[in-house]
């Protein structure tokens, strides 16, 4: 349930910077997150993702720049920002020694809901996110996935228009990760704006409308995941029976992709990334291999993942 209409910015920032001691955690971040969308901040550990979330959630004051969340300035109107956000940090911040229902009721009470309203809201959320059966058990006994789900749900008690999720699935097994993804989709279906950070490119790809890639506190790329991937070519892999044929296969790949093939003798595989904008079609590739007399055991064309995008971007920066 968003209180912001679609053409407005739920989160905006300009030149946001923060240093701790001599280390620059965030170095001039600009952000524009339209209301009702999911925005993914991507990057390795230490890229500045968590610092960005902490600045936007008013937990830390910026050294430089400004940011507005739900229309309020984080430095001058922190109280109003806090009324408009939900935060799920990197660890499930739920209390282990009490039940799931009590956790949610307490969050409601901290948001100054009446006792009855807080209980009603807790019941409703437990039901909606499949935690009703576990609601009266101590959180200590929950699985990792259930804890994270409860932690997410705790952000929703007051239906805030903007949600910050800091690495919502780090350390979870694939099934629990899927459950969290479903829960996040459920949130956004309600019209909330979600800003999430992740180290998993697949996660940003699945959930985010727009991603920003951060490295060493700076944005190195941003845009819809599809556009970022289009900027990188198609990944082509050929596996041959006889390692002796690798040079021939590499020659074909160089011609077809325009890229630089890399051979792996142990796996009898040669791989290349096509130049951006160059279309690689499977039948043409197979015909070219056949014409060169290469007995290909396996041929694969893969649209680049965000991993490829990230590696390409960081390699570019290191080279520069």
């Amino acid at each position, binding site marked *: 349930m968003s209180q912001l209409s679609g053409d407005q*910015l739920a989160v905006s920032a300009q030149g946001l910077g923060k240093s701790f001691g001599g280390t620059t955690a965030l170095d001039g971040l600009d952000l524009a997150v339209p209301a009702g969308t999911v925005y993914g901040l991507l990057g390795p550990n230490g890229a500045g993702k968590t610092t960005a979330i902490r600045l936007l*959630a008013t937990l830390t004051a910026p050294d430089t720049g400004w940011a507005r969340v739900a229309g309020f300035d984080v430095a001058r109107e922190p109280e*109003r920002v806090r009324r*408009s956000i*939900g935060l799920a940090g990197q660890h499930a911040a739920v209390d282990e020694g009490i039940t799931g229902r009590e956790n949610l009721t307490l969050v409601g009470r901290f948001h100054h809901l009446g006792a009855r309203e807080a209980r009603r809201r807790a019941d409703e959320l437990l039901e909606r996110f499949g935690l009703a059966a576990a609601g009266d058990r101590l959180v200590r006994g929950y699985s990792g996935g259930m804890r994270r789900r409860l932690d997410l749900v705790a952000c929703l008690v*007051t239906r805030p228009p903007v949600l910050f999720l800091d690495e919502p699935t780090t350390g979870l097994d694939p099934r629990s990760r899927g459950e969290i993804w479903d829960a996040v989709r459920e949130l956004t279906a309600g019209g909330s704006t979600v800003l999430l950070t992740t180290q998993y490119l697949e996660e940003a790809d699945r959930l985010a409308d727009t991603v920003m890639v951060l490295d060493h506190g700076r944005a190195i790329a941003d845009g819809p995941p599809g556009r970022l991937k289009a900027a990188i070519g198609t990944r082509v892999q050929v596996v041959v029976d006889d390692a002796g044929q690798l040079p021939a296969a590499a020659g074909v790949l160089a011609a077809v992709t325009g890229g630089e093939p890399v051979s792996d003798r142990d796996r009898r595989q040669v791989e290349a990334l096509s130049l951006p904008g160059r279309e690689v079609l499977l039948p043409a590739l197979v015909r070219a291999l056949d014409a060169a007399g290469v007995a290909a055991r396996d041929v694969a064309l893969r649209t680049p993942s965000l991993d490829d995008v990230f590696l390409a971007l960081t390699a570019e920066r290191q080279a520069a």
Partner: protein
Amino acid sequence: MSGSTVSTTRPARATAPGGPAAAPGRLRRTALDAATSTTRVLLYYRHSPGLLAASLAVPVVMVVLFGYVFGSAMRVPGGGDYREFLMPGLFAMVAINGITPTMVGVARDVDRGATDRLRSMPLSRFGVLLGSALADLLIGVAVLVPLVGVGLAVGWRMRDGVADALAAFALLVLFRFVMTWVGTFLGLAAGSEQMAGQLAVLTFPPAMVTNVFVPTGGMPGWLRVIADWNPASAVVAACRQLFGNPTAPASAWPLQHPVVATLLWSGLLLAVFAPLAVRKYSTHGR
């Protein structure tokens, strides 16, 4: 650094969030948040009654160890029964021991992100800390009551009337409250549960260099000064005086005026540590 003219898309203002329509007044909010914070801690104890039993076990073991094992060879300089001398000291121990669970609990909240979650909510930070201090005060009372029963069973008595006895209990509760704020600050300063656990061990010697178990008169000069001026010693001496229990002769000012000294120490410690704790809590991670 104002940026209202930088963005062409004017940032949207949120209307009142879906929950409460208007923010309650400052005082009312502090009270509400304190009440919720108290509930949070008490719920924790309700689900883990063993914690309360453990808090009680320590002073009860002390009654046996010191009251009967060491106490069999102890003579109180001013005369009187050693166990009657000991009990007020153990009551004060309960107050001092308030530091440890608070410290570890606060540090655990920081570790697990609960502090960040709370700080991202529109609540009174003073109220949150006040609430957990009040909860801890209630826990202290819950441990003190059965210990008083144990004391009565081993021959300790309140000999100076109800009013003085109530005053003594009031001082004990006040001191527990003060120690909670000290613990809150130390827990926030420690920043991790592991660090807090190790710091907690360090609170043991200051708690022992007091008049809790033995009169300070027999200690070497330098140590005696520390023990005489230890705030905990003032609390113990005040309780011995108000309960009408045996007291050792004292020359230091705080032990000659223990009630006033306890009030002064409490006021001083509270005035230092409560603002420090709130400040540390508000600026955590900046």
